[in-house]
């Protein structure tokens, strides 16, 4: 077993990106993700990488667009208000088929909101990180170790499918320390980026990275081709963890920080004789529809637990074609629910059944 370190989530995200071969970070300070950038600013100069504090989130995202288009692994990180500002650029990345890693260490909103952990950017991440028809890969780690692992997955799949990927974390995961094992620095095994704009040197056709298609038919066929890729991704890249679902009557669906709490709540409920279980989506896009569907065959009802007013609940309902009741329990504004209050909710639902 490799050595376990204690690392803050934000720092682990940074180190994992470096291990995954990322040498280009463009960011702009915002709580609660500042440690990520601080870590990069310390490390990058020592390993010949670029840490650049941009003038804004918009500039940072566009620098990532440029660097990724030039063929390197590039990333940016921010928190909720800063992510809103990046949406135009993210839509361009998607429309130009440029991969990139974007990290959202969510905080409470709307507006300036607060700086405590939140999961209220689920809809933005899964449906509308900008204008137009597109999706990006969205990963939802629940531990610092999983953050480390998913960073390289996000880079790999982003490169593979030529699309941006997001790690949707939150202030709790970003700020906490947990033991982590760092992977060996892995050489990027991705296919050569023959589409990159880095000078043709008269050795290949010139490359163009672009999202403009003035002829509607061209634009439509681009978009449709992309959605075929998405269909394929939906089939192959869904990820979720199941916990005690085999015999569960009531299945909690929760991701990230709230999944940790829900996990404890399921244990509490089991201790009280309630057959509770959990599905923890690890990919939010694609949503792990297959697993939720499978669980719905035996479960009697679902309980979505989110640190928001309820955004994932639609995806759970749609996954199971509304075939079972899907309930909701959520806290918002930066409040982390307690296992006890979730367990209470489970008990009420069991009673109400």
């Amino acid at each position, binding site marked *: 077993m490799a050595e376990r370190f204690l690392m803050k989530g934000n720092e682990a995200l940074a180190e994992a990106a470096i291990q995954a071969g990322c040498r280009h970070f463009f960011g702009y300070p915002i709580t609660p993700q500042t440690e990520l950038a601080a870590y990069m600013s310390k490390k990058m100069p020592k390993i010949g990488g670029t840490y650049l504090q941009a003038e804004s989130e918009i500039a940072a995202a566009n620098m990532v667009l440029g660097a990724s288009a030039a063929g390197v692994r590039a990333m940016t990180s921010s928190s909720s208000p800063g992510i809103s500002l990046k949406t135009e650029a993210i839509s361009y990345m998607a429309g130009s088929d440029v991969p990139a890693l974007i990290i959202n260490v969510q905080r409470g909103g709307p507006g300036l909101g607060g700086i405590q952990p939140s999961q209220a950017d689920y809809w933005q991440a899964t449906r509308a990180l900008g204008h137009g028809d597109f999706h990006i890969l969205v990963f939802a780690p629940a531990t610092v170790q999983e953050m480390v692992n998913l960073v390289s997955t996000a880079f790999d799949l982003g490169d593979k499918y030529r699309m941006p990927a997001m790690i949707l974390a939150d202030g709790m995961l970003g700020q*906490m320390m947990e033991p982590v094992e760092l992977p060996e620095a892995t050489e990027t095994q991705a296919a050569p980026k023959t589409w990159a704009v880095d000078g043709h040197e008269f050795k290949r056709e010139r490359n163009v990275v672009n999202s403009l298609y003035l002829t509607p038919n061209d634009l439509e066929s681009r978009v449709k081709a992309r959605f075929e890729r998405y269909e394929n991704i939906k089939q192959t890249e869904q990820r979720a963890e199941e916990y005690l679902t085999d015999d569960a009557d009531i299945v909690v669906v929760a991701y990230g920080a709230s999944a940790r709490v829900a996990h404890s709540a399921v244990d509490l409920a089991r201790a009280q004789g309630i057959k509770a279980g959990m599905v923890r989506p690890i990919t939010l896009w694609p949503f792990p529809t297959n697993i939720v569907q499978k669980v719905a065959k035996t479960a009697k009802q679902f309980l979505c637990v989110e640190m928001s007013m309820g955004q994932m609940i639609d995806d759970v309902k749609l996954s199971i074609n509304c075939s079972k009741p899907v309930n909701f329990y959520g806290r918002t504004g930066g409040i982390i629910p307690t296992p006890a209050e979730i367990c209470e909710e489970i008990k009420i639902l069991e009673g109400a059944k």
Partner: protein
Amino acid sequence: MSLNMVIAGFGGQGILFAGKIVAYSGLIDGKEISWLPSYGPEMRGGTANCSICISDKAIGSPLVTTPNVFIAMNGPSFDKFINSVEPGGIVIVESSLINKKVERDDVKVSYVPASALAEENGLKGLANIILIGKLFKEFGFSSEEALYKAVEKCVPAKKAHLIEANKKALELGMNS
């Protein structure tokens, strides 16, 4: 038994560092651990607190809302958390800075004049570590070996000369 601890006080008292030593001790013992600081503008205002969990099982929420161990290093923190401590829990009060008494009788309280002790023993700034020493005595959150190793790990290389002082502070706490 799992440790679900809150340590709280003024910024500058080494709250986060003390928490990290506890967390590292658990790590060295091969336990599951988590460490979560409070963050945000109140850090500026002067208060800081930190949640630490050590457990054999995966840790759910790292935010400790009902601690079974609470170390209070100033008055406002004492007030804020004292009623959330689990019945049967352990409370350690920095009694050179807090001149209140715990009114609950369902928790086990120790009063340690850590700042005064530190001053007396030429360990200025190590009141936090003295309190950890005391905690160790009250609640063996890790092996003693792991605790001392944790100190070595956590003191930054630049301040390696302070390792001995930290160890001394631990002992002082254990014997207080």
